[in-house]
């Protein structure tokens, strides 16, 4: 038995691959659920009910999917140009803290139509800055941005931690490390009344479509793909390599920073160190599950959010740990990588 590279990938395989991967991941984590002594199908049913069974749970799932869509897009645009941005988590936090700082001080008195766009922009800029540094190191000194962007996550998170325990600490938070809040006027309006679902979800959806168009229709999309696929070929064709990759980094870092901004302005209004349950890292999983396709990111983020939100309901009903959701999402990344491999090759005897 051997593998031969498939030269043409039929459409049904492109669509089927992620579905099969998710099915395999569910089957594998089903074994774990069974080992924990719970009925597998009921467990998955509970997850579905937990995620979409009521108006409240459905809006909660979409709320959770919002930052995942943005961090997923951040990873997808970067990876497509072979900029390995593993620093989504740090960019998320830096975007969030920038919003909290500016929103609670400079723009505390500003009306919403002014402060919301300015704060979203602020968050995106903060995220950008954190990715420009690793990219500059790569362009100037050939330092691998996988390492630098990853390590900057810890720098960023500790920096945020310092700020919310120090200069930005909310004096009214009973001693908890928590930043000051942005003004109520700066909060994103709700998309659905009496829920946590906010307009950030709409922003993320629109951005997914915009990025899809940018990648498939624009000169920038073409050039950034060329720069990622073959630096030498791109340079020969006159693509300005450094400028193109820098723009990609701005887009990617900006999206991750925007995710942090949206999470602050949409949900909490302030920053704590548990603002993100790993949104930056999960974004990488989401992007891979989506095959780096911007519209696929929307679906992959919904799947991931469904697992995370639904797992609570399952856990309560069946008395098994919510970690099953983490395991399932992680497994789906592994099965996706395997499935992508098999989709590229055909098996011959």
């Amino acid at each position, binding site marked *: 038995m*051997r593998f*031969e590279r498939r*030269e043409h990938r039929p459409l049904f395989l492109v669509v089927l691959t992620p579905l099969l991967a998710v099915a395999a991941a569910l089957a594998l984590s089903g074994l774990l659920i069974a080992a924990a002594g719970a009925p597998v199908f009921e467990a998955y049913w509970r997850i579905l009910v937990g995620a979409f069974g009521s108006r409240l749970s459905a809006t909660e799932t979409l709320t959770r999917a919002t930052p995942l869509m943005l961090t997923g897009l951040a990873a997808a645009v970067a990876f497509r140009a072979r900029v390995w941005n593993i620093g989504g988590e740090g960019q998320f936090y830096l975007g969030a803290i920038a919003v909290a700082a500016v929103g609670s001080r400079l723009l505390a008195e500003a009306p919403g139509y002014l402060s919301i766009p300015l704060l979203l922009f602020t968050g995106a800029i903060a995220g950008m800055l954190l990715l420009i540094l690793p990219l500059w190191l790569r362009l100037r000194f050939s330092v691998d941005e996988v390492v630098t962007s990853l390590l900057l996550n810890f720098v960023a998170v500790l920096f945020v931690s310092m700020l919310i325990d120090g200069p930005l600490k909310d004096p009214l938070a009973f001693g908890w490390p928590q930043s000051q809040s942005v003004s109520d006027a700066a909060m994103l309006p709700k998309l659905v009344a009496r829920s946590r679902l906010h307009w950030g979800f709409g922003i993320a959806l629109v951005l997914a479509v915009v990025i899809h168009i940018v990648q498939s*229709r*624009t*000169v*920038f*999309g*073409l*050039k950034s*793909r*060329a720069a990622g*696929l*073959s630096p*030498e*070929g*791109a*340079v*020969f*064709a*006159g*693509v300005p390599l450094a400028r193109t990759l820098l723009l990609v980094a701005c887009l990617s870092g900006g999206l991750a920073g925007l995710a942090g901004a949206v999470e602050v302005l949409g949900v909490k209004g302030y920053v704590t160190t548990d603002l993100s349950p790993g949104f930056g890292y999960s974004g990488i999983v989401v992007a891979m599950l989506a095959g780096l396709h911007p519209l696929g990111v929307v679906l992959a983020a919904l799947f991931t959010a469904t697992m995370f939100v639904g797992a609570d309901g399952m856990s309560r009903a069946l008395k098994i740990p919510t970690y099953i959701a983490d395991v399932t999402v992680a497994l789906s990344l592994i099965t996706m990588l395997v499935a992508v491999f098999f989709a590229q090759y055909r098996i011959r005897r």
Partner: protein
Amino acid sequence: MTETVLEIDRVSKSFGGNKANDAISLTLGRGEIVALLGENGAGKTTLMSILFGHYVPDEGHIRVAGVDLPPGRPRAAIHAGIGMVHQHFSLAPNLTVLENVMTGTEKLWSWRSQTGRARAKLKALAERFGLVVDPDARLGDLSVGEQQRVEILKALYNDARILILDEPTAVLTNLEAETLFATLKEMARQGLSLIFISHKLDEVMAAADRVVVLRGGKLVAERRAGETSKAELAELMVGHRVARPVREAHERGAPVLEAAAVSVRVDGVDRLREISFRLHAGEILGIIGVSGNGQAALAGLLSGTLLRSSGDILLYGEGVGDLSVAETVASGIGRIPEDRTREGAIGEMAVWENAVLERIDEPRFSRRGLVNRSAAVAFADAIVRSFDVRGGGPLTRTRLLSGGNMQKLILGRNLAEHPRILIAAQPARGLDEGAVAAVHARILDARKAGTAVLLISEDLDEVIALADRIQAIVGGRLSPPVSADEVDARALGLMMAGAWKKEAA
């Protein structure tokens, strides 16, 4: 007849519906050198991969010294004494020569490494066959020719009696190739049997005892090297008569591109030293030289990817500053890069994307940052049709095209725009006979239409056949030009060795 060491018996192999090998039978005698000749895609590499156990044949057998070789088992092939020298070496650049040679031979569960014994064996082999190489050198520091020597030594170290070389000269300079063939002959004289794959007629005639010609997966002819000619082999290989196009006498026009004492310095190294040339409309100026003497810098300078450190360049009679790639293309300079898979085209992108990438900012292909996809696809489609690019259309991934067709695409995207100047670096390197003729014909057509062509090449035959005037490039310097009609291969060889400098001094 000498004893038969290898017998390939009616071997067939299909990929999809495509018969890559169709009932091929072939024998190899002790001490014999057989050349496997055929165009790209004729099935040469497939056959050798079956022999080495990389592929399992659909039908047929392989016998070594009369014993059946189990199919699909490279270890069995190595054990039976078959050694393979791949076109793209399978060596680790971060290990030393000795470590590379030993890799895969040592027992996994052993306390001590056999370094001492291995070193002695390697030294004995190197002396016996004249394959000199420092066992402690890091492989990555060696030249391509030396790396190939290591690859051969590795096969010999595994006690190979039958050596298969896949396009061994594809990466070598002419001089290195001559050394290689001397070594191969010495190995045959000492009783080893060799098969080498090639599509170059000269080396087949020079080195082989017997020539086996494959075409379209079938064995079409077998000839003793002494009883055939290049013309016959070319015809057998392609299936019909091929004649390389011939340059016709032709009036040249005004100078369009002039360089005066131009130097290029890359990372602190002088790649070009005060070169001067004058390129006229409607002529081909050949720049001949062994690769690594500044050709890459010259091509980069004129293609807009490298900046000069001093000197003047006149374009259409006027001095110009440093031109970017976009400005170069816009001013009517067509560019064929030396390495088509690295620079010339991006394999993972579609044919249409590669066709327009260097012109994507022109208004016909994009407006306000949006790609005009239908115009770009139509442009690519026109190239595919008029330049006879086979193996796919505008939407095909470029990687799927063969080397010759990829080169036709690159040539086409330049010539379709009727450039006033064409910078062609090694335009026919690595192509098979049919594709070489096609590329040459196109370049000559461009010359006839008034294009000024700067042909950078290390192939003497190519330069003599195409160029009107010739300058040699040696150590980053250019010789004064000579007329192609007044010079022969021997004189050019002297120029390539830098002989003109003495005259000047």
